């Protein structure tokens, strides 16, 4: 595909962008372009028109408003990993951003793109789902808020409809005593896709786990919640043996495939190891927070 033959549109406002997308039905939105341009170059996607979002200022920046943190779709991994709000309230998201791709990609990729591309091994969705984040989908006439855990429908398939654009990511402020941890296993420390990844969240109350979430990445068509493993933790006192049991449950909930990065067997083994390790780190973070806020 010749990139030179593509028409590039550069709307200055969100409204202009949405109007364009209604007018040109087949047009693609471009945020960072780290997935889109590669797909076009490899002939996986035929695009005649691209609507660049780069000029839309309102889609940039990370803000705390009311009881949530709001990230614009154009926020880059570099923005996330160095942001003080993120590092204070949800350091696991900064960890995930830091673990992504390479220096160059982290400077231009966007959170909106990382979510919208709906690649099973994407790094940002698991910690966001664990944090009960939702996304705002904006159409020309209306907008709606969709929980991220319900956003993914399959590999490269989402709840976002034609004419809609993912504009913001909303993370509710977590209750005291909450910790989240994200770990992934890769075959190289940098510039490598996850073979398996896990984000775990625990919220402690009176020494027991009050809420828990274990989210698995790269081991199913979409990021998935290991429901049985998560529920198992509720109302239990955190301990290594409890985490061990949850890890074994999580392992059975993954539905990985075998490919060049790892076999089904190996991916399942990794789920259990990563679940155990993320739970331990989430607990540590939960306890640390608890202490501070007392």
């Amino acid at each position: 595909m010749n990139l030179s033959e593509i028409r590039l549109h550069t709307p200055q406002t969100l409204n202009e962008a949405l109007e364009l997308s209604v007018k040109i039905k087949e047009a693609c939105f471009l945020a960072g372009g780290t997935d889109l341009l590669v797909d076009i170059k490899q002939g996986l996607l035929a695009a005649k028109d691209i609507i660049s979002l780069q000029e839309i200022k309102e889609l940039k920046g990370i803000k705390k408003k009311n009881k949530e943190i709001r990230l614009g779709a154009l926020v880059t991994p570099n923005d996330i990993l160095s942001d003080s709000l993120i590092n204070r309230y949800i350091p696991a998201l900064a960890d995930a951003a830091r673990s992504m791709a390479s220096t160059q990609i982290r400077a231009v990729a966007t959170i909106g793109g990382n979510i919208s591309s709906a690649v099973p091994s994407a790094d940002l969705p698991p910690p966001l789902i664990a944090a009960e984040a939702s996304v705002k989908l904006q159409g020309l006439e209306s907008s709606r808020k969709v929980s991220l855990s319900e956003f993914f429908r399959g590999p490269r398939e989402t709840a976002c409809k034609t004419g809609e654009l993912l504009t913001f990511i909303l993370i509710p402020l977590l209750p005291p005593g909450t910790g989240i941890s994200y770990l992934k296993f890769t075959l190289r420390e940098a510039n490598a896709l996850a073979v398996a990844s896990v984000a775990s969240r625990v919220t402690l109350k009176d020494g027991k786990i009050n809420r828990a979430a274990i989210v698995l990445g790269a081991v199913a068509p979409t990021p998935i919640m290991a429901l049985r493993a998560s529920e198992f933790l509720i109302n239990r006192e955190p301990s290594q043996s409890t985490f061990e049991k949850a890890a074994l449950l999580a392992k059975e909930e993954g539905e990985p495939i075998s490919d060049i990065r790892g076999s089904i067997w190996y991916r399942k083994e990794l789920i259990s190891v990563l679940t155990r390790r993320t739970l331990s780190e989430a607990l540590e973070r939960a306890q640390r927070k608890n202490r501070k806020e007392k």
Partner: protein
Amino acid sequence: MMKKYSVINTPIHNIDGIAKITGRAEYAFDIKLPHMLYGKILRSPYPHAKILKINTKKAEGLTGVKAVVTGKDTLGIKQGIWRRFKELCDEEILARSKVRYIGEPVAAVAAVDEDTAEEALDLIEVEYESLPGVFGPLEAIKQGAPQLHEHAERNINVTRHIEWGDVDEGFKKADHVREDWFRCSSQHHVCMETHNAVASFTPDKKLTVWTSTQSHYYIQVLLSWVLGLRENDVRVISRYTGGGFGSKFELDSAQFCSSLLSMKLFKPVKIILTREEEFMATKRRTPMFYYLRTGVKKDGTFLAKEGRVFTEGGAYTSMGATALYLTGFFQAFPYVWPSYRYDGYRVYTNTAPTSAMRGFGAPQATFCAETQIDLIANDLGIDPIKIRRKNAMYPGYEVPGQATIQSCGLSQCLDKIEKWIKSQGKLPPNRGIGIAAYGFMSGGIFNWFDTPYAFSSAVIQVKIDGKVDLYIGSQDMGQGSNTTMTMICAEELGVQVEDIRLHMGDTESCPVDLGAWGSRETLMQGNAVKMAAAKAKQQIIEYAAAKLSPNIVYDLDIKDRWVHLIARPERGLSYYDVVKEAIRGKDGQPIIARGHYTPHRKGMISPAYSFGVQAVDAEVDPDTGKITLKNCVTAHDCGQVINPLGVKGQLEGAMAMAAGYGFTEDLPMDEGKILNPNLVDYKVLRATEMPETKVIEVETYEPEGPFGAKEAGEGLTNPTAGALGNAVFHATGLSIKNLPITPEKVLEALKEKKKEEKK
């Protein structure tokens, strides 16, 4: 007393470093000529198929397309680098009737820009008849397997046999015999500069090709052969080459297709391979299945070794025949084996051809040999250093019928590594240090290319201001040979590096050298340069002698631009002054001298061998099988070091490449299709994986090398996979005999072991 050397053994930065880092170095990649067109190559999507028909009409009709060529436009010559052996010249480059691997070129287009050329590729209609393919050597050698070439029954391409001593008797005497099977994977060179060429054919029937190569001479000769031109009507220019590692001394599709298109159009044509094409179709390290049977005495003395190997040849011979011989030879390195028998089979398969890659068959051999030696040491309860020391090669040792070892610092290397290991104390759990000993050649003696020229030549011209023009045929591809040659010239002539102006990378102005492969430049080109410099120096000294009129018993020399009596260094003249007068005295002729080197009566393989021992300290995560490299220490004998900074760079580069071979890099395939032809899924090491590295130089003097120097850099690729595997063995008790040692393989073995222990 003057310092022994005023130039060599002093660390200096590469002389072309500044041009490179400031972007001023002009690679073929950067060449732009007036009216230049851009070419693209259509490649086979089938691993094995007959070409029934090619219709190029539609492509030719596309606006902007200037020419399309197919096999029909060629002379149909089956070429190869083993020119002395007709049956090993089996590759047409543009296939005429049959394709044998995915990615084999079938047509090429020249157009006004790359996008148009690419669009035209989609318009070329090729009718194929798909044939059954065969993808592994063990299947391809079976009776009844699909046959790739008419002349090669059971797909056997080359066989090799090496034998000395009484092997059967050796096994009879042995107290302990071990048999192991190993699988060595493939690896890609991943040069930063992909294969590319700009070819310009002019109405005077002369062809100029700017390209990225390890040997402009080979490319000149091969191009003239397949295009039907006279050798010296083809000029190859390769001032800079962005990495080679063995992938760039055969004729490639960019060079051939751009030349063919340019000859049709009388316009310059540029072809740059994409990274994906590079992975699919520019050759790669040879995968090998190794069987080793080894017999030793109770005390660890080696008695007999038998090796059998089946290598995955891919579709064509390439440099694979050399790799098959060298892997057999280096399987017995660097030890004294009273008896040894080797049988190698290179088998054609419907996969991308396998060929030369840094180490040239030796990394595979060293991985298998060194892994097995640790297993034997473990079986017998002998320390890994001790068993190696007991059997180590030594100066003056003769490999029966093959080679004579002159300088050899292997024992000193073992001592240094033993000392380092001891200094580390007791290691934490899941951590281990593994070692591997190795050796390598300093240039090959083989002349399958059938050159009538000396293997290396150099010409020197000293100008009136004392500036020296040095013309060499060797190719710098990043390994630093330009700097090495300049240093050797400066040292021998008695001047400084800044006095030398180097001319290289152009067949029109440079004397012939076979190129940068087989670790030949330092020794072979180095000797030629040293000879030329010595002859030029002699001419200068003659004039100085006339002026100084010393007693006849005194010898003169030049050091650091001072022409002097060796015994009385204060009695002398400025080099610059002498040169000026000398040229005047020669009736105004500059001082010119030539040097050359061809090995004679130096055995079958190489005039000299480097040696070393490497220790890898690694940690294994018992939950995931993940390996983390902590330290890599190498004791290294490359004779006299020319440029210490160059050696360090070579060691670190080789270590990164060889560790990648050991545990991250692989080319998995599905029916001949490479599944990871990109830099995300093909995992070369990054800074994040690199451990601390340390070099301990063990200096020896190699009588055959310039100033006593030998190979440094390629041989360093040999030990790492074995040392890494042995580190995993000492950390976990597990020996993985199947490269690369991935975390999944380690975890699988750990789980197996646990199961066994429970029983």
